[in-house]
């Protein structure tokens, strides 16, 4: 028991990532996710959240990024330099930013592809029912081409598809992107339920700090490729800086730069 408590499910230590051999994107990131916990990774656009997730899942190499320093361990096993499919087999699945559903496949086929790495065909059928239980809307849409369902439903497809691989840890990248607030809430509620009822651990990269901190137990804040702050979700949401920079709760105008940042962030939301 004691060793379980000290050894987290996922631990990322001092990871440095360089793109195209020159651009330093992550400058020594360390974080950890406990068994069955939800950890939020907050930060603005370009802070390095997605890169961190991709370094963990091994998807980094497909976009010419390279982990040049540091260690990533999943249950004590190093995952660096492993093939993405091997990482999935070991229990980490990433849900990519921007949903990335297979547009020409039906909703159900999308879900079934998620079970590709698994050898137990019958259990996959059972898991399909599980996914439909959590996302009843997908059951209604099972025969539709995934490219034609709504944005929220596509996000559900992406999460459901990842669930089909039976992960212990889900890397969830910006699930709120481009979705109406109602839908964002619905999706976050389901993620919280999955965590509670299925014991799924989640590393959640989000710009929407309010939402993320509502479901997470712990949080990290990233800026410019570094972790600048971390703590319990509650501590973080009560931190004055966080309130001001990320939650938009206190005085505007005390800092000139804040206005620009906020303005910029708001415009991004509209665009996406």
């Amino acid at each position: 028991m004691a060793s379980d408590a000290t050894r987290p499910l996922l631990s990322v230590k001092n990871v440095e990532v360089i793109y195209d051999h020159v651009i330093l994107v992550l400058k020594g990131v360390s974080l950890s996710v406990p068994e069955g916990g939800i950890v939020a990774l907050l930060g603005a656009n370009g802070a390095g959240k997605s890169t961190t997730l991709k370094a963990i899942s091994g998807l980094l190499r497909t976009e010419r990024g390279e982990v040049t320093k540091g260690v990533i361990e999943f249950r004590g096993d190093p995952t660096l330099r492993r093939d993405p499919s091997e990482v999935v087999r070991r229990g980490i699945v990433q849900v990519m930013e921007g949903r990335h559903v297979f547009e020409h496949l039906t909703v159900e086929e999308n879900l079934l592809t998620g079970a590709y790495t698994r050898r137990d065909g019958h259990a996959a059928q059972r898991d399909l029912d599980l996914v439909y239980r959590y996302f009843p809307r997908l059951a209604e849409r099972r025969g539709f081409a995934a490219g034609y369902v709504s944005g929220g439903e596509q996000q559900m497809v992406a999460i459901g598809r990842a669930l089909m691989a039976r992960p212990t840890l889900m890397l969830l990248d910006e699930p709120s992107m481009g979705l109406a607030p109602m839908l964002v809430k619905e999706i976050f509620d389901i993620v919280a339920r999955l965590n509670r009822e299925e014991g799924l651990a989640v590393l959640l990269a989000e710009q929407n700090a309010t939402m993320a901190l509502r479901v997470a137990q712990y949080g990290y804040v990233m800026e410019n490729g570094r972790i600048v702050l971390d703590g319990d979700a509650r501590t973080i949401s009560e931190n004055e800086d966080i309130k001001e920079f990320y939650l938009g709760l206190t005085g505007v105008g005390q800092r000139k730069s804040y206005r620009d940042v906020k303005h910029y962030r708001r415009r991004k939301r509209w665009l996406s």
Partner: protein
Amino acid sequence: MTDLLYLVAVAPFTDMAGSPAFLVEVLLGGVFAGLMYSLVALGFVLIFKASGVFNFAQGVMVLFAALTLVGLLERGVPVVVALALTTAVMVALAFAIERLVLRPLVNQEHIILFMATIGLNFFLEGFGEMVWGANVKRLDIGIPDRSFIVRGVQINQLELTAALTAAVLVTVLALFFQKTRIGRALRAVADDHEAALSIGIPLKTIWVVVWSVAGVVAIVAGVMWGAKSGVQFSLSLIALKALPVLILGGFESVPGAIVGGLIIGVGEKVGEVYWGPLVGGAIENWFAYVLALAFLLARPQGLFGEKIIERV
């Protein structure tokens, strides 16, 4: 003026009606040629679907498969064994292509992969001729090139066999794509590489599978064409005829490759026989390309091509 109109719009049809048995023969000839085009086009479609690569070397793969088969047969290997060995060679080729060509070029622009297949094209051509020799060979797989007559219509036994084989092959492929786990994964990869990777579909395996399948299709096409017109370099040029088939049927569609091939095969034969004399013949040579051009203007995704899904 009315004379010309009569010659273009009336005379060919009265000819057809005058001798229906001959019309059926022309149509059958067209269907056979069309299926042959379809088989080559199928190889393109498979690889394009799974990797977005336009495989310029597909025509040479057909030639290479036929050369290998003939070479083995010439050395006295029994037909069945030779077919099995050729299949093994094509699968080995798929492995080699994935390892030596595709893997080092992962994440490159499509045009670069396309260029790589052009290189592959020249390599296979030279390699095949180096190993098996460059002279025209006869391919005899034991199906006689004889005809029999049913109700006044001549049917060629070889063409009939080829048509049936193609039909079986296409059915199997369609089922493979729609119903199996690997087939589904292939379609997933075609849609979104990165997402496929993210849920653990290994691209390497998928590529090997798809190039192997394209290799097997190339064998079938090579055998059929080779048995009909001998195995020679010009076999690789039928790839050019597959292009209009693809444009007509859609680059991602297996049924499209079949229907496109049939339309072009039948169209060019009928055009040649009934309208050819009007323009001094050779309609067969340009019909496919003109039709493809018309399709590019009116329906660029082809008859069955995947609609470009755009959400607004």
